C-alpha cells in the first residue's frame, strides 16, 4: 500500500490489486479521533489501525491486527465490523495482519484487544457502511439518509429496493472519505453479532487439524534448529565437544550463539545451536553435544535459600506505597495481632505449543513467521539484532498454541533470525518442552506478609501488607531490586477494603532468572494473599466468609487511590472511564453467591470458598466447592463465576475465558518452578504439574453481568480469584489454611 492510499483525504479508495473498497482507520485508545496516516507526521503517531477491504465480489475482508491464542479475537473483531455493515457472516473473510505500526498497538496482552479497539472498529465499520450507503444513494438519486445497510445490501427505506454490496463497491470506492465526526456507529439495540455467542471462525479448521501454528511452519530448503542453552543465566560454554552431534545424519551446522549480556531483554540466552534437515536430527544432535559451562554468582542460587530470604524481606517490611491512617501504630498498640505469611513459587506459562519462529534472512531483508503475541516487537527486535532497517523485516503471525504472556517476548524470533542470517537459509527454530520449562521468562516468585488487628466485634481496624517479589523490570535493567508501580497496581495498590488504617509496602527481592508476564501477572499472588487473609480474618471473627468480605469492602464507592499517596495507572486507561468501583465488586459477589446458593450449600455441609478481585478493569467473583476425603485427597465438584467486564462482544467466548481462566488459576496452584545451583529443576510435564482433566472442576457455571459500561478485560481477570477461592474452600472443609503454594496433592489435617 502506498503512502498516498493512506493519506488523510484519500485513505479510502479503490486499490489496484483488489479493485475493491479499502478503508484504513485509526482511533487512539479512548478518543473518538480519526487519525489516518498523514505524510507530514511520523509513522509512530499516525498509523491506520484497522483495514477493511470490501472486494468487488462483495467479500468483506477484515484484517485482524491482534494475535489469536484462543481468546477468539479474530471472531470478535469480525463481529464488531459485521454489525456496523450488517454484513452476511458467510461473506466475511478475516486476514491476519503482519507486525506494522500502521495498525497501532498490536501487543496482544493485558486483556486489552477489545477495550482498546471496540470504538475504533465500530467507527471503521460505520465509515465503510456510510460510504456504501452514499454510493447506493448516488446511483438511485436519493439521500444516503434514506438508505440502510441490510444483510450485505443497501436498502432504500422508502421504496424497499436493495442492491448488493458487490454492485456498489466500484462507486463507493471513488467517494471521499467522510469525516469521522459525521460517522455514527450503530445503536446497541441494533447489534446482531456483538453481545451474542457467535462460534469461532477458526473452529472448522481446528477440529480437522488444518490450522497452522508457529511450530507448523514449513518452507522449502528450510533447516530446523534446536538450541542447548546455558543452565544458569549469563553462563557460557567453556568447552564444546560436538564430534558426536556432527555424526547425527541430517545435522548440517553447529553454531555457538552470542553470549548473553546484562540485562536479558529479549536477547538470545546464548548456548549452542544445532541445525539439521529435520526436527528429529536437530533434537538428536542437541542431545549429543557435550558442553562444559562456566559458573557465576547465579550458580549459587538455591531455591530454598532464596525462599527464606524472600519471606524475611516481606516480614521485615519495606517502602510505603499507600497509606491511610496509621496501621503500624494501631497494630503496635493492640494485644492481639493477626498475621500471616504467604508464599507462591516461580511458574512457567507452558503454552501447549512451545515457542517457535521461522526466519528467512536474505541480504538486508528478513521475513519471520512466528506464534507471537507482539509482532511489532518481533519486527523491531529482529531488525535490531540483524542490523537492518525495520521496514525490511516482515513478521507474519501464525496462530498461537496458547500464549499466556510467554509469546509476548520476541526472543525466539531473534534466535531464528540470527541463525538464518548465519547459514543463508530459512531456519525454523523450535523450543522443545524442556527449553520452555527451563529457560523461560518466569512468573515471579513472591512472599507477602500481612498483619491486622480487630476490635471486640471482629471489625478490622488496621491492615499492614508488605509484598516482595523479583520484578519484571529486572529483565530490562540492571540492579532492579523492588517491584515497579506497574506491577504493584496489579491487585496490591488497589486493595478495595475500607479499613481505617491501611499501609501497603514493597520489599526487596533479587532475581536470578528472567522474570516475565504470565496471564494476569502479579494479580495471582496478590489476590491469593489478600483473599486468604480476608478469610482468616473472618474465621478469627467467627463470621461468615461472605458477610465478612463484604464488611471489609464496605460501602459501594469509587476509591480515590491518589488521595492515599498511591501511584496508580489503572492498566493504562483513564480512571474516569474505568474507576475502581466497589459497587461493581459487591455486585459480582452477591451474584456469585446467589448462583452457588452460598447460604443453602453451607447449611448442607458443603465446603465453599469465595474470592472477588478487580483486574484489567473487570470485576470477577469466584466460588469454588471442594470435597476432601479422609486420606486428604481433594477434588473440585463445582466452580461458580460472576464477571462484570462491561460491554461484552461474545458471550460464549467470555464464558470460555472464565472457564479456562479458572483452570489456569488451578494450574498456578499446582505447579512450581524451582532451582538448584542456579539451574531450573523441572523440565517437562512429569515434574512441572499443570491441571489435567481429572483436576478440573466437574462443572463451571458462569454468570455474565449484562452491562453497558465500557468494555473491559476478559482474558486475564478470571484467573486471580480462583486460587484463594480454592484455598478458602479447603479451609472450610478441613480447617487447614494453605499459605504456601504449590498445593499438596493431599491435605494433611
Amino acid at each position, binding site marked *: 500500500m502506498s503512502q498516498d492510499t493512506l493519506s488523510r483525504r484519500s485513505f479510502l479508495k479503490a486499490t489496484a490489486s483488489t479493485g475493491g473498497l479499502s478503508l484504513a482507520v485509526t482511533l487512539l485508545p479512548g478518543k473518538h479521533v480519526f487519525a489516518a496516516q498523514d505524510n507530514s507526521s511520523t509513522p509512530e503517531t499516525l498509523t491506520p489501525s484497522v483495514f477493511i477491504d470490501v472486494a468487488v465480489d462483495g467479500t468483506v475482508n477484515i484484517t485482524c491486527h491482534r494475535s*489469536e491464542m*484462543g481468546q477468539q479475537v479474530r471472531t470478535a473483531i469480525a463481529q464488531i465490523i459485521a454489525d456496523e455493515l450488517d454484513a452476511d457472516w458467510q461473506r466475511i473473510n478475516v486476514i491476519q495482519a503482519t507486525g506494522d505500526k500502521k495498525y497501532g498497538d498490536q501487543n496482544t496482552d493485558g486483556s486489552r484487544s477489545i477495550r482498546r479497539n471496540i470504538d475504533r472498529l465500530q467507527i471503521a465499520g460505520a465509515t465503510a457502511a456510510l460510504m456504501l450507503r452514499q454510493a447506493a444513494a448516488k446511483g438511485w438519486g436519493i439521500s444516503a439518509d434514506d438508505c440502510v445497510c441490510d444483510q450485505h445490501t443497501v436498502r432504500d427505506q422508502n421504496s424497499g429496493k436493495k442492491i448488493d454490496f458487490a454492485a456498489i463497491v466500484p462507486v463507493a470506492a471513488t467517494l471521499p472519505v467522510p469525516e469521522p465526526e459525521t460517522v455514527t456507529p450503530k445503536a446497541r439495540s441494533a447489534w446482531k453479532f456483538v453481545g451474542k*455467542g457467535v*462460534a*469461532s471462525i*477458526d*473452529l*472448522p479448521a*481446528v*477440529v*480437522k*487439524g*488444518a*490450522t*497452522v*501454528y508457529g*511450530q*507448523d511452519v*514449513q518452507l522449502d530448503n528450510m533447516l*530446523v534448529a534446536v538450541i542447548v542453552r546455558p543452565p544458569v543465566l549469563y553462563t557460557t560454554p567453556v568447552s564444546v565437544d560436538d564430534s558426536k552431534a556432527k555424526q547425527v*545424519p541430517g545435522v548440517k551446522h553447529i553454531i555457538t550463539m552470542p553470549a548473553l549480556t546484562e540485562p536479558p531483554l529479549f536477547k538470545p540466552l546464548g548456548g549452542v545451536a544445532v541445525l539439521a534437515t*529435520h*526436527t*528429529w*536430527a536437530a*533434537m538428536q544432535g542437541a542431545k549429543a553435544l557435550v558442553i562444559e559451562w562456566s559458573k557465576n554468582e547465579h550458580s549459587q542460587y538455591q531455591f530454598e535459600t532464596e525462599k527464606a530470604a524472600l519471606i524475611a524481606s516481606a516480614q521485615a517490611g519495606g517502602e510505603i506505597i499507600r497509606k491511610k491512617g496509621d496501621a503500624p501504630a494501631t497494630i503496635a498498640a493492640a494485644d492481639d495481632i493477626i498475621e500471616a505469611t504467604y508464599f507462591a513459587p516461580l511458574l512457567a506459562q*507452558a*503454552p*501447549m*505449543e*512451545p515457542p517457535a519462529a521461522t526466519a528467512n534472512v536474505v541480504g538486508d531483508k528478513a521475513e519471520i513467521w512466528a506464534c507471537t503475541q507482539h509482532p511489532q516487537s518481533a519486527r523491531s527486535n529482529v531488525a535490531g539484532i540483524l542490523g537492518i532497517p525495520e521496514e525490511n523485516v516482515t513478521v507474519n503471525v501464525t*496462530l*498461537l*498454541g*496458547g*500464549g499466556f504472556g510467554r509469546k509476548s517476548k520476541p526472543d525466539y524470533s531473534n534466535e531464528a533470525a540470527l541463525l538464518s542470517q548465519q547459514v543463508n537459509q530459512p531456519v525454523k527454530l*523450535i523450543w*522443545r*518442552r*524442556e527449553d520452555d520449562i527451563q529457560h523461560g521468562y518466569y512468573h515471579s516468585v513472591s512472599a507477602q506478609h500481612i498483619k491486622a488487628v480487630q476490635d471486640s466485634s471482629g471489625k478490622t481496624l488496621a491492615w499492614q501488607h508488605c509484598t516482595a517479589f523479583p520484578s519484571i523490570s529486572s529483565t530490562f535493567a540492571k540492579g532492579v531490586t523492588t517491584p515497579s508501580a506497574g506491577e504493584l497496581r496489579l491487585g496490591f495498590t488497589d486493595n478495595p477494603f475500607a479499613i481505617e488504617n491501611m499501609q501497603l509496602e514493597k520489599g526487596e527481592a533479587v532475581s536470578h532468572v528472567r522474570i516475565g508476564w504470565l496471564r494476569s501477572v502479579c494479580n495471582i499472588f496478590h489476590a491469593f494473599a489478600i483473599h486468604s487473609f480476608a478469610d482468616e480474618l473472618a474465621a478469627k471473627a467467627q463470621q461468615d466468609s461472605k458477610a465478612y468480605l463484604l464488611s471489609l469492602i464496605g460501602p459501594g464507592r469509587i476509591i480515590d487511590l491518589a488521595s492515599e499517596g498511591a501511584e496508580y495507572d489503572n492498566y493504562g486507561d483513564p480512571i474516569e472511564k474505568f474507576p475502581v468501583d466497589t459497587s461493581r465488586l459487591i455486585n459480582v459477589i452477591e451474584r456469585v453467591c446467589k448462583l452457588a446458593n452460598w447460604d443453602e450449600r453451607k447449611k448442607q455441609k458443603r465446603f465453599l470458598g469465595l474470592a472477588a478481585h478487580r483486574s484489567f478493569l473487570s470485576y470477577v467473583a469466584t466460588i469454588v466447592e471442594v470435597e476432601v476425603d479422609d486420606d486428604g485427597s481433594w477434588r473440585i465438584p463445582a466452580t461458580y463465576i460472576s464477571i462484570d467486564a462491561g460491554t461484552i462482544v461474545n458471550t460464549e467466548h467470555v464464558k*470460555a475465558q472464565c*472457564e*479456562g*481462566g*479458572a*483452570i*489456569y488459576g*488451578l494450574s498456578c496452584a499446582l505447579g512450581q518452578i524451582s532451582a538448584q545451583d542456579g539451574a531450573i529443576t523441572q523440565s*517437562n*510435564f*512429569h515434574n512441572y504439574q*499443570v*491441571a*489435567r*482433566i*481429572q483436576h*478440573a*472442576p*466437574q462443572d*463451571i457455571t458462569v454468570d455474565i453481568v449484562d452491562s453497558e459500561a465500557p468494555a473491559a478485560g476478559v482474558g486475564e481477570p478470571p484467573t486471580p480469584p480462583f486460587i484463594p477461592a480454592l484455598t478458602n474452600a479447603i479451609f472450610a472443609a478441613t480447617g487447614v489454611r494453605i499459605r504456601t503454594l504449590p498445593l499438596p496433592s493431599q491435605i494433611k489435617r
Partner: protein
Amino acid sequence: MKITINGKEHQFNGDPQMPLLWFLRDELNMKGTKYGCGMALCGACTVHINGEATRSCVLPMSATDGMTITTIEGLDDTDSHPLQISWAEENVPQCGYCQSGQIMQAASLLAKNPSPTDLEIDQNMSGNICRCGTYPRIRKAIKKAAGSNS
C-alpha cells in the same frame, strides 16, 4: 519399511529410532498431529495405531512397520466424525493446539466404550493436557457424541 497412514501406504528408510511424529510432520508435512512434550506426557501427538490411541512422539518408526495409522486428517472422510461435530457444537477449542490429540484420544475411547461415565472419561483423557482449560467442554462433547452414537 511400510506403513499405512489414513489409508495410504508409505515407505520409510530413515533412522528407525525416529518417532512417528516427525515422520508425519517433517516428511509427510501432515501438521495436524502436534508436538507438545516429546515424552508422552501431554497427548498433543495422539494418533491411532491399529485403532489404539498412541503417543506418536515416542513411538519409533521401527515399531510401526506394517501398522495402520490414523491421524486427525484421516479420522473421517468428510471431517464429520461425531466428535468433530460435538466438538464444534460445544465450542470446545480455545487455542486449538491440543485439540487434535484430544479428539483422537476421545475417538479411541468411544470406539471401545460407547457410553463412558464421567470417571471413565477423566481416566481415559487424563494424559491429554489442555492449557486453555477446555476440560469441562471436552467432557460435554464426549458425552454428546456418545449420545449420538447410541
